[in-house]
């Protein structure tokens, strides 16, 4: 086996959830804490990954996935969270030490040439990012609300995928 070639799609969970952030910097911990809570649920067909920052090599973690969700703290924007489709786009952060989800998708497209998985960004509103600080109460509440939505959505996605494989008719759009 080669370390440079990703695993074949059949060996991978179809859904990847990536939580981004530094656990030691207040509300920046939202991403890793989300992954910690999702791990406890052992969601079928879902792989979980956490890192300080998105980087170019994360493009290879997307290979073979049906759907990818990026969870990050949002320093601004709607409360308690936003959930939006991510579109591949080269941006300034593509040459940065920290990439945006859009830039990771763009790197995936350039490096693999393969069709993109469905991708979403779950931006959970945070407020304070000081070194050594804990997650603040408001951010914790936002995270709870965001995970409630995400877990329901992932469950619905799994059911739809199973139905699609067995030929069962689907109902509803499944959108949040």
């Amino acid at each position, binding site marked *: *086996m080669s370390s440079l070639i990703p695993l074949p799609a059949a060996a991978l969970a179809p859904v990847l959830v990536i939580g981004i952030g530094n656990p030691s910097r207040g509300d920046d911990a939202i991403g890793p804490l989300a992954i910690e809570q999702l791990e406890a649920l052992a969601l079928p067909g879902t792989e979980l990954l956490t890192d*300080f920052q998105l980087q170019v*090599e994360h493009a*290879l973690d997307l290979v073979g996935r049906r759907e990818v969700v990026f969870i990050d703290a949002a320093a601004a924007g709607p409360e308690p969270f936003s959930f939006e489709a991510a579109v591949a786009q080269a941006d300034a952060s593509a040459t940065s030490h920290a990439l*945006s989800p859009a830039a990771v998708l763009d*790197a995936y497209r350039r490096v693999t040439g393969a069709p993109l998985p469905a991708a979403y960004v779950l931006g959970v509103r945070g407020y304070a990012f000081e070194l050594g600080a804990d997650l603040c109460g408001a951010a914790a509440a936002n995270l709870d609300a965001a995970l409630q939505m995400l877990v329901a959505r992932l469950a619905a996605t799994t059911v739809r995928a199973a139905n699609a494989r067995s030929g069962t008719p689907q109902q509803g759009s499944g959108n949040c």
Partner: protein
Amino acid sequence: MSSELETAANPAGLRRIVVEPLSRVEGHGKVSILLDNDDHVKQVRLHIVEFRGFEKFVQGRPYWEIPVMVQRLCGICPVSHHLAAAKAVDQVVGAEPLTPTADKVRRLMHYGQILQSHALHFFHLSSPDLLFGFDSDVARRNIVGVASEHPEIAMQGVMLRRFGQEVIRVTAGKRVHGTGAIPGGVNKPVSRTDRDTLLKDVYQVIAWCRSAVHLAQKLHMTNVGLYNSFGAFRSNLMSLVAPDGSLDLYHGGLRARDENGKIIFDKVDYSRYWDYLTEEVKPWSYMKFPYIRSLGAEAGWYKVGPLARVQNCDRIPTPFAESERREFVDFGGGQPVHATLAYHWARMIEMLFAAESIKELLHDDDILGGELVTGGPRQERGVGVIEAPRGTLIHHYRVNEDDQVVRANLIVSTTHNNQAMNEAIRHVARRYLDGRTLTEGLLNHVEVAVRAFDPCLSCATHALGKMPLHLELIDAEGHCIDRLIKDSTERCLP
């Protein structure tokens, strides 16, 4: 040796242009430029606006937690902090020297970090500047020609970084937040399966690294006038070297040379680094300014990182990298190369050295097993020094009888380069900004100079919406008379 542009003679009445924060570097930095009414540059300063509070953060923690905790200093080079802290804690537990297995597994981890960090910097941080030019039509035309010969570089950059991360994973346990280095050694050897997997790829990795050196060299030679002069300044050089004077990025003694290459001090024990280095505080920056004690603040500042290391050592102990080092030294014609943009060429030579070192370590069966941990008489103090991707990294801890850290001092690579980066942007500002109408392209020249040092200005925070670029033009009374905001898509908005 300090620049006359550090402080303007009469700051009142000067216009201020602020570049904040720097794009494409971690954290938040700010460059302020004061111009007089005729647009002459009168003062240039690189400000670090975020206070690094980690020394306080670790106080009171048990010493054995420190190698894991310090990885949260930086999301790009956590392994460097992990290993520097582990080396410091080795001294606390009296573990010197380490067992062969521990020493070699740690070295493997370190060279994985060097490889992935240098690949990231060259292929994804600086190559847009280098390949597409920075507002010079001539440079753009020549350099795009070079780039068109290498359409595969984006893929190679990702793959090199991926390989480096895999080396870290098999030695530290995880790609991030690993726990491989512990007080006195490591917590596991490398498995035979992991070793064999990496061995299959390492020869391809070395080939890509050789190509990267040649690309960096070709970029330099294609526009040698620009590359030699852009942000260039003469200074002392400092790094670790092995006992035989060869390049060693994991362990050794401190060596410093002056701007002409003459030795200032050589192979000194870093456990008493304060006998040779000290730091100056300046009121306008949170970041200290280190200098060589015997030379004083005015003449004693220095460069660290790839450009210093490749020229500070007597040789590189791997064949391909040594061959490239000789070409680099020959290019200098008997004098040290001080071109700021030569950092990129030197960085690629080091990346090749890292790849060759990984290959040699993978072929060494000591990494597969043996004694993992050693110890000795307990000490109150520990100093760990390592050559991180960006330069010399010092971790210094004092531990009480209850095993708690009571004092910590960290001198990170970017701090060593603080004065050097300031000098680089002053030269660029004098050359490209003085007396001209300001444009985004001109201001980007300042950023190009700073990026060459690969600075790490802050810890790893990257919430969505945290990294815009603001340009402000402020008059002598402090009023903002113009503003340009470069958003995350690098569009400039009024």
